[in-house]
């Protein structure tokens, strides 16, 4: 029950910030599901790197697994970064544009 309690407390704190109201069982189970879903799906996506290099995949998977699991709970952090603030939306839009251009610059060499 340690993970449940941990997530319950975090959900309670964030509920105070974003949407005041009682913390229900469904909220906490939803948060746990999304937590597990997020970790597993990110690790699964990292497996795609095996088409580039198997060694790189192993390394990335290990690092990603350690970083994600030690940073539980992740969802509140994700949620803060993806709120309706215009500043954050603009920031991520510009960062994405930068990533795409960088991807083109270096990735273009593999064409």
């Amino acid at each position, binding site marked *: 029950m340690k993970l449940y309690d941990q997530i319950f407390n975090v959900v309670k704190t964030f509920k105070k910030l974003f949407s005041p109201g009682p913390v229900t069982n469904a909220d906490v189970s939803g948060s746990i599901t999304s937590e597990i879903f*997020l970790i597993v799906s990110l690790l699964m996506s990292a*497996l795609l790197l095996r088409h580039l290099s198997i060694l790189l995949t192993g390394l990335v998977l290990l690092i990603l697994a350690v970083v994600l699991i030690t940073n539980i709970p992740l969802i509140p952090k994700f949620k803060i970064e*993806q709120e309706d603030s215009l500043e954050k*939306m603009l920031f991520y839009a*510009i*960062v*994405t544009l930068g990533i*795409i251009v960088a991807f083109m610059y270096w990735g273009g060499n*593999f064409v």
Partner: protein
Amino acid sequence: MNELIPLMVIVPMIAALLLSAFSKFDKVIKVLAFVVAFCLPIIPLVSNYGLHYFGGYQPVLEPITNMTYHPAITYSFNFMQQIFIAIIGLLTFLVIFIYLTKYKKVSGPYLFLVFMGTAAVTALILTDDIFNMFVFFEILALAQVGIVAASSIDYSYEMALKYMILGSIGSPIMLLGIGFLLALTGSVNITDIVLAIRSGIVNFKSPVFLISLGLIFFGWLYASGLPPFHTIKSGIYSKAEPHGAALLQSFTVISMISIVLILFRVYSVLPIFEVLIVLFSVLAMILGVSLALTQTDFRRMIGFLAVGELGFIGLGIGLGTQFSITAGLFQALNEIVITALLFIGFGAIVNATNEVDTRKLGGLLAYHPKVSIMLLIGGLAMAGVPPLSGFQSKLMLVQASLSCGYPELSILAIMVSIATFVVFVKTFYSMFLRPKPHDLDVVTKDVPRAMIFAMAVLLIIVIAFGLFPDVVTNGISQYVGGMIH
């Protein structure tokens, strides 16, 4: 009857202008809006396949290079366009029908925005001209902003303004990319551009070509609401009237597939293009569903689920085979119908309770059994439960990624479907099955009949596509085969 091809755009556009001009005459605009909306799904169904050259400028054969050039803005109409335009026409009709029956006095400017949006997406899917695509993409963005701002929901203006500000980054960057492509190929006609690339006139390894892909791709992310624009996209859905949100998400799906098919034709020579699409689609699936799991506002929850579903469409197109693109387009068609059904159904609940927080709702099955059963089937279809339409398209996507040698993408697609199922079951339980909270007032016991009618029509399509997917997939597959070979 190829004259009907331009009419698919011109009819809703003229209707939009007339409705706005005669907005003082309530009865006249009600009749006009209904008649035009009724005609919209019929026009594509009675029209023949073919091409339409605006101004009558036929293609020109250049004797030295022996290549054909297209001086006119060209519209291309095939089975794929037919089915999407018919569905968007039907959805516009249902939305207009709900709107006309909901309000005693209707707003001409609001109807203007709805018809203008429909005209813009129809043009987007028909056009074979990249600049024409951009123009309608801009018109569509403005119509979407207007539809959100016109709703009576709190903070809708703010959300619409944010969407417009983000658009002021996305649109010019896309235009810049189109400018680079024009500078490189000397044409805005997509067939001519593709010919120039395939015949070797344009070096596809050129940095200008690569950067044009990056810039147009960024504009596409804005149009389709893939990350980093998933937050604002789900935000505008939640701040629009439910029937408006149903239409907005269909606009998003159509603009997504129209632009990505153009991008696919032009840039599929670059392997990096498909990697980019798969990358952002996977990100959309993960972020959309994981954020939907934590929502308490059910409108926002469907908004995030809709974004997650967009990832499936992108995945099919990013895999780049005939089967996968067919699966992606079929998924797009299903998403338009299913998400519209969910937005309208949940809109009926808002109508009855004036409440959007799932924690404060409960016991609504007893009050609205018809709505709840139709919503349940819609939610199961979205999660990919057989034999509904969502199952067929998701199964095709899983098969496509397996046959392309990416089992991890198949597993991810299945995981996202399961998570979608969890989101829906959790919400359905909170709203319909658990005991009704004492402080919940059910304002009106009757859900508007127009909403029930719209949901029933959409539900019939969901079940029909689920039982007979070949009716749609065969035609789409033929179109895709012609496009990629």
